[in-house]
């Protein structure tokens, strides 16, 4: 007689990993939404970080994390309008409407500037994310600058895994 083990009998946690993605993305907690920020590997601005911030001159202004070359992070937050921005030589901003239970994707690219590269963030999607998922790894815990950004342990990833 075969008995289902508890792990089999339990319902698997909801997962928002797109089909074909090499990066696992959990579902956001109840009542929350999430944004996956990522930056695929590129020679352009390789040494530069793409520091993502939220709010500016507002009470909720905060640094989220810094995307190195070929990195990603997952930011879980409350539903509603959120203003994200990056800046180096120039500022670039993106407003998203975070909706509970949903996952959105944002890509950072370092573009050519006059003196140095300039970061650019823009909406992305699952197709684009899956294409680049093989070349990205989680931002180091040291660069997680906001409690809403999921740490390696929360994602079941070894901190030093790349």
């Amino acid at each position, binding site marked *: 007689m075969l008995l289902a083990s508890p792990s089999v009998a339990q319902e698997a946690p*909801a997962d928002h990993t797109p089909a074909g993605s090499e990066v696992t993305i959990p*579902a956001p907690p109840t009542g929350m939404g999430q944004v996956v920020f990522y930056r695929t590997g590129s020679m352009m601005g390789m040494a530069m970080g793409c520091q993502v911030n939220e709010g500016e001159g507002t009470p909720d202004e905060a640094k989220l994390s810094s995307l190195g070359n070929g990195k990603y992070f997952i930011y879980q937050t409350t539903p509603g309008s959120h203003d994200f921005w990056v800046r180096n030589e120039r500022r670039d901003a993106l407003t998203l409407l975070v*909706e509970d239970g949903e996952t959105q994707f944002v890509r950072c690219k370092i573009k050519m500037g006059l003196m140095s590269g300039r970061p650019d963030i*823009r*909406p992305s*999607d699952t197709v684009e994310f899956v294409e680049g998922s093989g070349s990205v790894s989680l931002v180091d815990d040291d660069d997680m600058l906001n409690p809403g950004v999921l740490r390696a342990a929360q994602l079941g990833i070894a901190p030093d895994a790349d």
Partner: protein
Amino acid sequence: MPAMAAAQDAVAEPPPAEVALSTDAAPTLAIPRLTPIVIEVLATLSSETSTSGDRFPLRLVEPIVVDGVTGVPAGTAGEGEVIHAKRKGGMGAAGELIVTARFLQVGDQQIPLRSMRVGGGDPTSRIDTVNNLAVASTATLPLVALVGFFIEGGALTIAEGARASARIAQDISVPLPAAAPAVESTEHQDDPPALTAAAEVDEQQGSIVEGETE
């Protein structure tokens, strides 16, 4: 049990919980949160001319039918909002445009909407719900599904008349029209008609929809 019979039975004994008819209250229809709908954008939106906060008109394309009962008729007007717009830049930088559906107006009542997706897509998906219009003119993935959506020289346009999917944002009850006709619904065909629906919306099913990359 037909709705009217249920109302008559209520005199002798409490009616079933799902029946919302009574002698002193107008009949209502409960529409579950996350019910998918199809809407039509009634204004042209563009990354070049729209600005964040712009409101735009929309209308319901297909009636909202729950268990064979029409709660909100096709043509019901509503409103959407431009969340983010950014003009195309130099060196091939594509424009960006993110829009959302805000509400349908039913009499004095606003039915809140969410999860708008331009050009169809899977309304049951909880992934990738941002209207990803930040695509380059070199997009190679199919655009045939994106009716009324154009990319020209990196500028993004949602033409007037473009179809989109969206969802009801919260559980809501709407008053039924005086003589709401029961229509044949493609869903719940085996269910008896009832004025309060218990339609299940699959929240667990995430899937991928078409998108574009540069």
